[in-house]
């Protein structure tokens, strides 16, 4: 079971003698599975809903798909506090930029703002982010900003601790020029598979599709998860 809790710079060591359990002193992490796929006309993003503090699930219905602007979302993985703070900062910066520009912002701009914060403060932060959205110029785009602050555009990208288990599935099942519904099915199945194998991922699957028309959100509850394996 992969527990991807990253210890921040000033973490306190676990004291076994204390009356207070271990997980109260650990930082809250979204050990996670997140995924984003481009299609012609938009993007589909998905995530699980589990936030852990050590071995304790602090929130089993987390929303890791955070709106940054009307047609731009980010998928958060890593430290919950760090990613919430970065997303808040970028939301402000992008909103300001968009007002100055008097036009909807580009997804590439949002991705660069994330990269700027994640790279500058790379020693202090623990954040892996997927930026996905739609803009007039380039349509649906997915940008990956992993820990360390790299920026790269990819047609399909996965992130978080559960992503390790679904690279194979993603590589073999993604084909260019898929439709929106095929993308939704792909993301749903992939995240379900990862939740099956990764202890730090679980709960419900949150999906969103972003296009020129707007944002459509849906939730796949625990009892409706796609059943992939028979054993």
């Amino acid at each position, binding site marked *: 079971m992969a527990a991807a809790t990253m210890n*921040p710079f*000033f973490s306190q060591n676990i004291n076994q003698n*204390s*009356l207070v359990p271990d997980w*109260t002193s650990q930082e*809250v992490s979204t050990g996670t599975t997140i995924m984003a796929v481009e299609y012609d006309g938009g993007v589909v993003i998905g995530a699980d809903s589990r936030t852990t503090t050590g071995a304790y699930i602090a*929130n089993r219905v987390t929303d890791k798909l955070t709106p940054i602007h009307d047609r731009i979302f980010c998928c958060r993985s890593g430290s919950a*506090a760090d990613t919430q*703070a970065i997303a808040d900062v970028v939301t402000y910066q992008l909103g300001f930029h968009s007002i100055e520009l008097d036009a909807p912002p580009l997804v590439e701009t949002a991705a660069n703002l994330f990269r700027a914060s994640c790279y500058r403060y790379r020693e202090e932060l623990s954040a892996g982010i997927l930026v996905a959205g739609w803009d007039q110029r380039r349509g649906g785009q997915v940008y990956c900003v992993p820990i360390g602050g790299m920026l790269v555009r990819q047609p399909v990208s996965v992130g978080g601790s559960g992503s390790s288990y679904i690279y194979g599935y993603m590589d073999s099942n993604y084909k260019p020029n898929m439709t929106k519904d095929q993308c939704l099915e792909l993301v749903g199945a992939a995240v379900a598979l990862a939740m099956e194998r990764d202890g730090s991922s679980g709960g419900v699957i949150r999906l969103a599709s972003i296009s020129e028309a707007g944002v459509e959100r849906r939730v796949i509850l625990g009892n409706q998860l796609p059943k992939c394996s028979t054993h």
Partner: protein
Amino acid sequence: MALSNVLETPLPGFNFDNAARNAALEGLYDGGQTPKPMKTGTTIAGVVFKDGVVLGADTRATSGEVVADKMCSKIHYIAPNIYCCGAGTAADTEKTTELLSSNLTIFSQTSGRNPRLVMAVNILQDMLYRYHGQIGASLILGGVDCTGNHLYTVGPYGSVNKMPYLAMGSGDLAALGILEDRYQQDMELDTAKELVRVAIHAGIMNDLASGNNIDICVITKEGVDYIRPYQESEYKDSRNMKYRYRPGTTPVLTKKVVPLKLEVVQESVQQMETV
């Protein structure tokens, strides 16, 4: 130009110069060498119901294995419509909530708006994130404002979660078991109060660091009902001896009274300018 004999006033705020050194030292020793902060092992819980929010807390503050305070107040006032339960380091929760209350009051007075829960949550999140988890405060904020009834939790590192029911502290697993089982949407007031009481009671029974009485705070559009204690512990002890000493227990050997002569040296009256 600074004179060499003028003292520099210390910078305001916390000083974390030693944090890096402590982290490095911890790596050298096998656990337990560096001093640990005192925590209020606690059970706190909150529930959103039809007309508002119910917050609950136990009243035990521990200092290691000793109960330092049997009637500690863990539900703190933030605004007339917002209260906050605090778990973690006692001093941190106390001062953080006081700071939040004063900042929120200033903000709502200058903007002319009644305080909203999201404002309180944002102020807290900003502050706790800035201090990188050095402030050991896990807080449950509940309140009613013009946008509805809300319940939030803010962790020590600055992560925020919004939920219809929450429990924090060392007894939170026990309380959450009760809440997960019995929570319903749009409960009536009495059902909600009973649910929170049972949840805190589970924390008290199953966690050594939680105990004594249960405090409840009900926040609705109409106002706040702070019931302290809502339920008293059935294990209250009765003191058999009086610990007060009679006057005369300590013998007085000599007594000398010296009246201080104070004389008025100068008196001046200045009229205040009035419009």
